């Protein structure tokens, strides 16, 4: 096998089909970048899930003097006796790890820190804030069951399951991931067709050479290799571009949301994703060239 012969043939082939080659590179780059983004979102979601599952709490809000919730209709604020009995009930539940009480002053402080609506802040008084129990569970998956059994208790106005809030965030990220993967599949499909066309053009351009090669007894691999290499090189360049796009995505998007989400994906994950997308990109290109060759290059 004479490497420089193959490479000069590949170089000529790529240059002759420059526009097609560029189209292949761009499609592969965008397709593989989207695939990578999908994988990165996926790994981000699983990291967030494992980070948050042992931090999820149930918030059991108690009635205040003028609670608008139906459970507090026709009754006043929660009494000390009710608080004590409720705390005992919660602590007695087998799934509960610990219970903490949040009084009105603490709730007001937390509210001031988390809400930026000035007008709302200025009219809210400490007495408006509800008291609550913060319930930490042994098994976060039991949250719904515990919430159900507590919702009928006297003086309980409302129960917020943080798990539900997280699930909606994860659900949104899951949709983003599916969209990225869906578009990636379309791009891969387009790339396959483009490569097929490129190889067809290339085979037509070089039909004289391949005809003579066949005639003088060049082996199939010698005849086909330049075409497959063209696909491989286009796929590789596209993969490099996809890698650059993924690094930019990591810096601009994933580092950007770091302030909202603890535990962002690290560079090791990005490196893994880039390697995987490159391998897939190159494999698709080589496979597409090879399959088209069988059709357009009689050997």
């Amino acid at each position: 096998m004479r490497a420089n012969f193959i490479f000069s043939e590949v170089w000529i082939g790529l240059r002759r089909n420059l526009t097609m080659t560029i189209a292949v590179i761009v499609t592969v780059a965008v397709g593989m970048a989207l695939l990578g983004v999908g994988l990165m979102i996926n790994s981000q979601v699983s990291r967030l899930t494992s980070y948050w599952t042992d931090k999820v709490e149930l918030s059991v809000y108690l009635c205040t003097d003028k609670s608008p919730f139906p459970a507090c209709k026709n009754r006043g604020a929660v009494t000390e006796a009710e608080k004590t009995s409720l705390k005992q009930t919660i602590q007695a539940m087998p799934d509960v790890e610990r219970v903490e009480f949040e009084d009105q002053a603490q709730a007001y402080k937390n509210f001031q820190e988390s809400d930026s609506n000035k007008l709302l802040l200025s009219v809210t008084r400490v007495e408006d804030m509800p008291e609550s129990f913060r319930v930490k569970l042994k098994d976060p998956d039991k949250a719904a069951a515990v919430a159900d059994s507590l919702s009928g208790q006297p003086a309980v106005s409302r129960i917020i399951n943080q798990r539900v809030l997280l699930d909606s965030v994860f659900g949104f990220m899951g949709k983003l991931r599916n969209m990225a993967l869906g578009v990636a599949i379309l791009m891969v499909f387009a790339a396959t067709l483009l490569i097929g066309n490129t190889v067809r053009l290339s085979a037509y351009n070089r039909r004289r050479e391949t005809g003579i090669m066949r005639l003088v007894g060049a082996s199939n691999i010698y005849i086909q290799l330049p075409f497959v290499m063209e696909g491989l090189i286009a796929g590789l360049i596209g993969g490099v571009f996809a890698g650059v796009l993924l690094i930019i995505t990591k810096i601009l998007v994933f580092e950007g949301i770091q302030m909202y989400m603890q535990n962002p994906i690290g560079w090791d994950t990005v490196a893994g994703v880039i390697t995987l997308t490159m391998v897939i990109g190159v494999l698709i290109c080589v496979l597409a060239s090879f399959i088209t060759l069988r059709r357009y290059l009689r050997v």
Partner: protein
Amino acid sequence: MIHFDNVTKVYANQNRPALDHVSVDVDKGEFVFLVGPSGSGKSTFLRLVLKEERPNSGSIHVAGKDLARLSNFKVPHLRRRIGCVFQDFRLLPNKNVYENVAFALEVIGKPRRFIRKVVPEVIELVGLEGKAHRMPEELSGGEQQRVAMARAFVNRPMILLADEPTGNIDPATSIGIMKVLDRINRTGTTVLMATHDAAIVDSMRKRVVELEDGKIVRDQSRGVYGQAY
């Protein structure tokens, strides 16, 4: 060297066979003319030898190999032992004489040192010494056919197939081409030449196999093109 036993070839979508129960033996070192009108089956015969086509029935042996049993994987190796020359030369227009001949060795993976040694030798053998760096378009038809013959012969094949090699060349130049073919034949290479050219066949006095409608109608050693001409 070439052995056809009761070979029939019918192309798809055609009723009449291109070759009809043909049996022929060509020995090593022979020079054989394959003559007959257009459509008589000459080209089909050559394509069968190269295993570009498969016969519908009958068996073909080339260089000791049964082509029916030769796997596709090994066909390139068969073709390395067969040189081919065509009416239309089939040279690469963007390569010069030397590169055109060297191409045939490059693509079968021969080392460059070997190529540098044998290509000038074969260019000299076909009478093109001093023209190694000309481009095909700068050469006459006869000279281009010499390049094609150099390319066909450079790997020292056991068999040389020539399909109307003088078809595009004037009679005076054709004589030169035939001299080269004769020279190649004298090195021990079996030459099988399909032709229309009665003058050439008559002047060479070699074995003549005549095909008509896919059948062999004459097989004559030291023959002429035909009584009718």
